[in-house]
């Protein structure tokens, strides 16, 4: 069966939901796909209904946006994993929640595939109890479940602050926050955020909450290693400037480490959309115009997948793409006042993102500091258990050659978790190439798909 629509939206987070609602409200046939059991993406991930009933919905506006999408008549296919592309280069291959194959075609494809957390290895990072900060946040906000009793947060970026506050709200002891940079000092750069008082207040609110709870913030500190048997039990930190020398060991039953977010671009790259290195982060991002149109006229890339900017930016990008599609479909551009409002909002939000980014070390600076200190024996690729030393031996500057020789990046995560570090270790390009299947797919799905096509 092939699902044919005016627009197929991949990803049900802030960007995809905003675009889908606007397009369907204008009368287009729209299908939105997401691999999660419910719409919302990561930012608007829905709490369990019992959690919401007892403790409230921490992001009610997400529920309102989803209700708007349904009311507008968008076909919502959750539990659908998009894993490939047919030979015609435009039909998406997916599997539904029961593992049945689904093919979808849209005259316009809107990719709102979001982002995932940037990780960097250290000895012991594969121990159970070592996670991303996002996992701790989902457990706390969506499931009202503390990730541990005594937690260390580490990495870099503003996201560590709200995660720490979510843990405090559950009564968790936050043993400390190790921030690789030194962002929390009064300085000129911080003044620019005054143009966005609401968002500055949000960050200041987190900082005040952490100060009241006397949570130590160790600036300029990185994780040297995690120790434990079947679960992490202690964390040793080092100074970011001397990442090999221990400065402090902290007991913890959970360690959550993340260095911000990376755009999830595999589907855009599979579709042949041109990518470029993000000037701020070095990550590969699709080349898009202000409306999100990629190098392929039928493919839009919006939200975090087009470059990290946060949920308000994602929603602005979703609206801009919807306006562009509607203008092409109807021959009538959206009223200029509305278009101008969206463009102005997107510009202001981009400005805030740039200012916030400037407070924290860039990914390139992180690699410069962390890669030389990474011991050869450290596991770099978690799926295939490949060490940093094995990858260094292949430092020919080619992630593909390293992948073929060591198997790094060949496991189920397809290099999403190790890719940043592997690129740093082999001093190569920023991303592994995108190949079908971009996610592991069940053998039964492939067999059923082949059966639909009939004998070769």
């Amino acid at each position, binding site marked *: 069966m092939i699902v044919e629509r005016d627009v197929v939206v991949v990803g049900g987070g802030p960007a995809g939901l905003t675009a889908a609602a606007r397009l369907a409200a204008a009368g287009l046939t729209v299908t939105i796909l997401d*691999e999660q059991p419910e719409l919302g993406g990561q930012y608007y991930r829905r709490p*369990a209904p*019992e959690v919401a009933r007892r403790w409230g919905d921490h992001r009610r506006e997400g529920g309102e946006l989803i209700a708007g999408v349904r009311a507008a008549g968008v076909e919502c296919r959750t539990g659908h994993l998009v894993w490939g592309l047919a030979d015609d280069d435009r039909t998406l291959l997916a599997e539904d929640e029961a593992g049945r194959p689904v093919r979808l075609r849209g005259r316009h494809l809107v990719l709102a595939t979001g982002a995932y957390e940037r990780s960097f290895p250290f000895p012991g990072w594969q121990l*159970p109890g070592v996670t991303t900060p996002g*996992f701790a946040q989902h457990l706390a906000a969506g*499931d009202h479940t503390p990730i541990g009793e005594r937690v260390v947060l580490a990495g870099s970026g503003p996201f560590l602050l709200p995660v720490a506050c979510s843990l405090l709200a559950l009564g968790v002891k936050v043993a400390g926050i190790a921030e690789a940079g030194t962002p929390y000092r009064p300085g000129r750069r911080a003044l620019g955020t005054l143009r966005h008082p609401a968002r500055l207040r949000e960050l200041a609110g987190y900082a005040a909450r952490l100060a009241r709870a006397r949570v130590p913030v160790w600036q300029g500190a990185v994780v040297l290693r995690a120790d434990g048997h079947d679960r992490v039990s202690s964390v040793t930190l080092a100074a970011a400037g001397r990442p090999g020398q221990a400065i402090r060991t902290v007991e913890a039953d959970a360690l959550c480490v993340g260095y911000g977010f990376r755009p999830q671009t595999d589907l855009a790259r599979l579709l042949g959309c041109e990518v470029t290195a993000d000037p701020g982060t070095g990550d590969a991002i699709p080349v898009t115009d202000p409306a999100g149109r990629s190098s392929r006229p039928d493919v839009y890339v919006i939200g975090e997948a087009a470059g990290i900017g946060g949920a308000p930016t994602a929603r602005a990008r979703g609206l801009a793409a919807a306006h562009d599609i509607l203008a092409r479909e109807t021959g009538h551009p959206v009223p200029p006042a509305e278009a101008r409002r969206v463009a102005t909002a997107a510009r202001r939000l981009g400005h805030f993102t740039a200012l916030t980014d400037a407070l924290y070390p860039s990914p390139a600076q992180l690699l410069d500091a962390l890669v030389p200190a990474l011991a050869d024996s450290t596991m770099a690729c*978690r799926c295939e258990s490949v060490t940093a030393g094995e990858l260094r031996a292949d430092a020919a500057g080619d992630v593909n050659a390293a992948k073929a020789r060591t198997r790094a990046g060949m496991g189920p995560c397809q290099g*999403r978790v190790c890719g940043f570090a592997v690129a740093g270790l082999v001093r190569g390009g920023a991303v592994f190439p995108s190949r079908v299947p971009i996610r592991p797919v069940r053998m039964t799905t492939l067999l059923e798909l082949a059966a639909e096509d009939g004998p070769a």
Partner: protein
Amino acid sequence: MTAPRSATIIVDGRPVTAVAGVSLTAALVGDHRWALRRNPVDGGPRGPFCGMGVCFECEVTVDGVPSVRACLTRIRPGMRVDTTGAPNDR
């Protein structure tokens, strides 16, 4: 305010109770079960890492279906979960 309803699932033959409808990772972590699988290459214990479907470290067998990501699965009463390492079908 009323207490939340709970649900009981069966993990490796033992009952585990959690708030109804939470993610399977929440039910397991709430029961202090962190090691959900062994890495097929080095045999070491692994547990949930990303919580959003990217890393595949939380794959378990659910009602006989192998390689199910616990982080993307909500618990249902009576759900049978196996973390003892049923063979991977991929």
